[in-house]
């Protein structure tokens, strides 16, 4: 069948629901299992994908990466560094308890609690104080003016858990349990689906929340099952054992397209894949070399060869869907002659030898291999080294590498999160700046942009930053991925956000 573009475009489910059948169980095959049901206890897409249906956030991001009201009806910056949110007053949790400002305060404070050591801490590290103004008004004071705050609040990490389970969880912690152990078993949110069961490593099942404050979901239940092998996921889709497979490997696209009753659903994403240079090491300490490499790579080869033509070449680190992306930002076009010239200018006309590290993800290995082949043209002799994930993270954080392949997903949809962790000198090493880039000017620009309250000025700042990053070229920006889903034709009303989260509220199944 043809890829169902319609499923993506008419996103605001309201329209399609009339003719869609009610009920049924939707089966989604995922690559990995949920790590935790606790919104504060995980930071991975599979977990977020499940949690997004159980827990809701004050603000939500729609598929165009625009902020929409969620549990909060409105929000504003009352001061430079104080954000106020007005909450809905008609929301109850799955356990019947009420949703109010106290709950919000408890949830965010829990993430900031050192003892909990939440994986979502990075989202709210700038929060200094949370004030319950009244039952349905809450104020966040940040250390410094922080413009993208609503985007951070919209992140799944800000999913609201019932106060009762938070308290129960703390109690359990006092009895020596790990943080989150209670919430993990009792994930109580306000979402349109309720938690039903979790068979660790195998599947999670959610059932419809009949008492949802908004319009209830069409489906009776959703099952997220784990099928880690890509080919098997395709088989699942073909046999009808699963309705949706997430992700679909590019190499399997043809197979899905050629089969009846199923189709491929692509979705552009907020992520970038890149090859980072260790700018502290020779010869990558020379921007000319970095630029030369940027210009020597024909990115379409990678997109065609590895991703079957899916995705778009990256000009800079920000994907088009990210707030702050400047489509006019200058880039380094593929130009082998120029590249050679630059290299010669840097004194490497005869090339050099270096290494390129990657972890064991097949696409990254392939990308590395392709870049290796392409750099032969510049007489750059690249040795590809595959490292196991844990080792890879630690060693690249230590700066043992020359070049490395990695990706970044701007999960908040805001340019700040797409740039600050990757390029600010404060984040060198482990936190994200594995290029070891230290540029005072860039630092200042990044800081200014995140504090700037005025949208226009802020966007301008990000344009400047993107131009600057092209010049600095701390990375070879490869491409912006497109998410691929394999979907059964019976599935109606499915959308996926550019952060990878499936929007299931409006989904229905044709029986």
């Amino acid at each position, binding site marked *: 069948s043809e890829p169902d573009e319609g499923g993506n475009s008419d996103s605001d489910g309201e329209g399609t629901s009339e003719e869609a059948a009610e009920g049924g169980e939707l089966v989604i*095959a995922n690559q990995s299992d949920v*790590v*935790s049901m*606790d919104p504060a*206890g*995980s*930071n*991975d897409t599979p977990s977020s994908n499940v949690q997004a249906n159980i827990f809701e956030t004050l603000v939500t991001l729609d598929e165009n990466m625009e902020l929409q009201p969620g549990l909060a009806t409105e929000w504003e910056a009352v001061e430079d560094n104080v954000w106020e949110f007005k909450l809905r007053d008609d929301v109850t949790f799955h356990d019947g308890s009420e949703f109010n400002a106290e709950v919000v305060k408890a949830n965010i404070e829990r993430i900031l609690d*050192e*003892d*909990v*050591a*939440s*994986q979502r*801490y*990075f989202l709210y*590290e700038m929060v200094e104080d949370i004030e319950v103004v009244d039952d349905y008004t809450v104020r966040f004071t940040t250390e410094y003016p922080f413009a993208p705050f609503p985007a951070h609040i919209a992140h799944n990490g800000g999913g609201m858990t019932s106060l009762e389970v938070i308290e129960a969880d703390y109690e359990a912690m006092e009895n020596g*349990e*790990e*943080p*989150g*152990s209670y919430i*993990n078993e009792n994930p109580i949110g306000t979402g349109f689906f309720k938690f039903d069961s979790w*068979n*660790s*490593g*195998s599947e999670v099942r959610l059932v419809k929340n009949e008492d949802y404050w908004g319009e209830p979901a069409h489906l009776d239940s959703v099952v997220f*099952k*784990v*099928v*880690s*092998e890509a*080919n*098997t996921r395709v*088989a*699942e889709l*073909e*046999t009808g*054992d699963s309705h949706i497979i997430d992700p679909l490997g590019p190499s399997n696209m043809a197979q899905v397209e050629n089969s009846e009753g199923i189709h491929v659903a692509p979705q552009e994403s907020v992520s970038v894949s890149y090859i980072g240079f260790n700018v502290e090491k020779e010869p990558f300490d020379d921007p000319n070399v970095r630029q030369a490499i940027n210009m020597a790579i024909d990115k379409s080869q990678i997109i065609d060869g590895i991703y079957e033509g899916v995705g778009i070449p990256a000009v800079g680190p920000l994907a088009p869907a990210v707030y702050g992306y400047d489509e006019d930002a200058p880039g380094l076009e593929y130009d082998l002659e120029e590249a050679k010239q630059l290299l010669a200018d840097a004194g490497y006309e005869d090339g050099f030898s270096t290494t390129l590290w990657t972890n064991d993800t097949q696409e990254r290995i392939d990308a590395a291999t392709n870049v290796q082949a392409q750099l032969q043209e510049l007489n750059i002799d690249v040795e590809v080294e595959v490292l*196991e*994930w*844990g*080792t890879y*993270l*630690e*060693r690249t*954080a230590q700066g043992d590498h020359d070049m490395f392949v990695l990706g*970044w997903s701007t999960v908040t949809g805001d340019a700040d*999160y797409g740039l600050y*962790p990757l390029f600010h000198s404060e*984040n060198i090493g*482990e*936190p*994200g700046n594995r290029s070891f880039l230290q540029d005072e000017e860039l630092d200042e620009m990044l800081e200014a942009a995140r504090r700037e309250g005025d949208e226009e000025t802020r966007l301008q700042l990000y344009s400047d930053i993107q131009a600057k990053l092209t010049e600095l070229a701390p990375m070879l920006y490869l491409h912006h991925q497109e998410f691929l889903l394999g979907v059964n034709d019976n599935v109606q009303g499915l959308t996926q956000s550019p952060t990878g989260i499936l929007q299931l509220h409006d989904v229905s199944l044709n029986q």
Partner: protein
Amino acid sequence: MIQFIIRRILQTIPVLIGVSILVFSMMHLVPGDPAQVIAGEGAPQEQIENIRERLGLNDPLPTQYLNYVTSAVQGDLGTSMRSGRDVSAEIGARFWVTVELAIYSTILAVFLGLIAGIISATRKYTAIDTTIMIVALFGLSMPNFWLGLMLIQWFAIGIDLPSWVPFFNNTAWFSPSGWGSFSQIVLPVITLGTGSAAIIARMTRSSMLDVIGSDYIRTARAKGVKEQIVIYRHALKNALIPIVTVVGLQFGGLLGGAVLTESVFAVNGMGKLIIDSIQARDFPVVQGTVLVASLLFILVNLIVDVAYRFLNKRIDLD
């Protein structure tokens, strides 16, 4: 006999201590910081530090080890660093799946391997013998994932053959994933059993050849016993003794080697758990699974030894 079993069970204690020390030190030796894997990209330094503190990773190693062993002895294998779930529960859910998978595959492997081996041995140096050897070596050289995916293609998705082909034109007989029902079990069991079947076949062949030449087989023939009975009753029981060792070794291998099969067929077993948790540097889960796997392995070896004794009462276990 009972004494022997009890003694062997007691002997597992030092083995388990050895295993735990080894796993523990290896996990700490290899680079990769669980705190960082958990925190993920973009997490600020101080937060990684918090996680480290929470997980007790800042204690000196001997303290960490002692803490672990102290609670492990009390039956508490700790909680997963990654998910915060109880390690025993995590393993418990998967344990039987893996054991079942290994047992069924072993049964299949033994069945196929024995038959092929016996046919090979009784028709030594004939075309059949050579064919079986080549098929066996194919089975051995075929990686699990390959065979698994092929089987899925053929017998779960089904292949399109002309409609006049009887029986095989719609071969979507089995389920591609999961574990539980018959249709889910068939393909992974075949996938996992094939390699071992090949080894068992080769072993059976040489073992049968040794036995068939022995005096007591001639005695049986001299009694007027039918050839089939001579082979399957008199010869096989003796030939089984070396085969049992191989089966034991294979079964142990299946426990670990199941990883690929488990992930191809989305079988939620221990093999995958080990790999995932090693990659996540989830120390307690790794230690727990390795201990359980070792225990299982020791148990299998014990069963093998008891089976020896059962097959040949002469073998002196002490």
